[in-house]
């Protein structure tokens, strides 16, 4: 099923990896103190003057690395949701999963149980609840087969999550509100190495589980009855895929706020390049998502420099037209 070899190496893996490396280099090079690519790589390896090494290693590299990990996690989450739900429009943001995670994270902070470790756990709880509610709503509307009904349920849950957060923030001090607003539009500006490290951990756990269950997703993507005929415990297998995808989305929300549409776009790029089985599609979506989000964060910093655009706004500007094209296809 997974054929990492043949033409896809030339058509996908090599260009995607090269794009990621180039974008990472550019992301670290760009800033108030511009650096040449050569200086960037020297500083990464610890050579060059102290200030440059400090800028690169403790300021710019964590941010680029966090963007890459957020993109990879969102890409895998989207690929897993699209495959298991048989829905080309599925992705954590549009399905309200990210919104649920945001409610969980905000509640944790509001209740004072914050701390780098607790926020993702609370976000995961919120995301898991959101997935459950979205699937229940879609089932009640008898529309699990219609991709648009599921999306509608997701958007509704997302809107409710937004409202809940606004209510929670109503009497917060202005500083907190402004910070929270930035977070709700997505940002990797607060990156530091500890945050990168624990997101990498969540990515390894959630992404590793999905890659392990990739063949289940292959079979689930045929439909419930064919999957059951092939020996899959449909409900059990779907549930654990949803949970792993939610865990990935929740970890990105805790690390960088709400970043939409990455999970929608990149699985289509991977499949468009000829990747078929879900093991390849998941890994391809991770690589592509990393490159896309590093590029998006670079664009967020460059386009209106020295002002910075919200990361989620940049991804939405790219993602919404893409969504409309996919919606047209899904409705055809």
């Amino acid at each position, binding site marked *: 099923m997974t054929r990492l070899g043949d033409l896809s190496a030339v058509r996908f893996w090599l260009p995607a990896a090269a794009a990621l490396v180039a974008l990472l280099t550019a992301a670290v090079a760009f800033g108030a103190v511009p650096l040449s690519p050569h200086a960037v790589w020297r500083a990464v390896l610890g050579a060059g003057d102290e200030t440059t090494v400090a800028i690169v290693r403790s300021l710019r590299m964590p941010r680029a690395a966090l963007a890459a990990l957020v993109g990879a996690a969102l890409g895998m989450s989207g690929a897993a949701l699209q495959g298991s739900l048989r829905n080309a429009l599925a992705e954590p943001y549009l399905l309200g999963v990210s919104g649920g995670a945001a409610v969980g994270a905000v509640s944790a902070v509001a209740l004072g149980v914050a701390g780098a470790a607790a926020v993702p756990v609370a976000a995961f709880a919120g995301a898991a609840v959101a997935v459950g509610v979205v699937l229940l709503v879609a089932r009640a509307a008898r529309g699990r087969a219609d991709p648009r009904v599921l999306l509608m349920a997701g958007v509704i849950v997302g809107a409710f999550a937004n409202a809940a957060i606004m209510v929670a923030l109503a009497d917060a001090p202005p500083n907190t509100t402004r910070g929270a607003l930035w977070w709700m539009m997505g940002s990797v500006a607060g990156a530091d190495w500890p945050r990168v490290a624990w997101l990498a951990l969540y990515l390894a756990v959630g992404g590793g589980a999905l890659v392990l269950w990739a*063949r289940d997703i292959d079979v689930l993507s045929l439909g419930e*009855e064919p999957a059951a005929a*092939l020996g899959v415990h449909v409900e059990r297998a779907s549930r654990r895929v949803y949970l792993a995808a939610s865990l990935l989305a929740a970890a990105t929300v805790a690390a960088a706020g709400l970043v939409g549409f990455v999970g929608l776009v990149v699985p289509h790029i991977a499949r468009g390049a000829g990747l078929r089985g879900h093991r390849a599609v998941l890994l391809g979506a991770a690589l592509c998502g990393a490159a896309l989000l590093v590029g998006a964060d670079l664009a967020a910093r460059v386009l209106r420099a020295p002002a910075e655009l919200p990361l989620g706004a940049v991804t939405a500007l790219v993602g919404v037209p893409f969504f409309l094209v996919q919606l047209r296809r899904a409705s055809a």
Partner: protein
Amino acid sequence: MIRFEGAVVRYPRAARAAVDGVTLDAPVGRVTAVAGPNGSGKSTLVRALLGRIPVAAGRVLVGDDDAAHLDRRTFATRVAVVPQREEPAFPLRVRDYVALGRYPHGGAWGAATPEDRSAVDRAVARADVAALAERRTDELSGGEWQRVRIARALAQEGRALVLDEPTTFLDVAHEMAVFELLAALAVEGVAVLLVSHQLNLVARFAHHIVLLNRGRVAAAGTPADVMQGSTLEAVYEWPLVVSRDPAVGAPTLVPLRAARRLP
């Protein structure tokens, strides 16, 4: 190989049971057909066999084991099912799709073994889809897709093959090709259980027909036993005659025009 013993299946909030005490046997080496009007419970039998809906009373056996207690993967290595409808959410290469038939045989990683590859080769050859192996599933015609799905089921290499309306939407040649393949598989020792509307073809190819009506067995036996005008007329609630096809000698159902309704 597959036995239903007094099976009762009830959908939630349904007035009557969809399957109401059905007993039938699909032995190895035979084509057993389940026929009947729309809503007679044919597809529900398949869903119950797959465990998609619980059997309220009676039981469904695969070999000597109760299907409800069989591990899903073990079940899928013994019984291959081609459900009525199926469309991959995202297109696959035909050969990769057929290889999904090896899923129940695989471990957690599902890496293809040489045995898997030769099983896929055999299935592709048997269902005559070798020429399609490199095509994408969304580029196939209806007839090609149906044969590819049967190839996927054959790759499971179970002793039993269950097909739910495998020839809907197929033209005469493709329909005949599918029935010929099923007959040949039965000769090779497969238990074929076929759910089909095509009574006239079923009468030519099946060894045993079970005619369902409103969830119950209305008639069962050889094609000659079941293809009785009075029986079929009562079940289908439509005037018809059964004649003997002059070319092939099989009993043939001929529905009559409503305007020429016999007294």
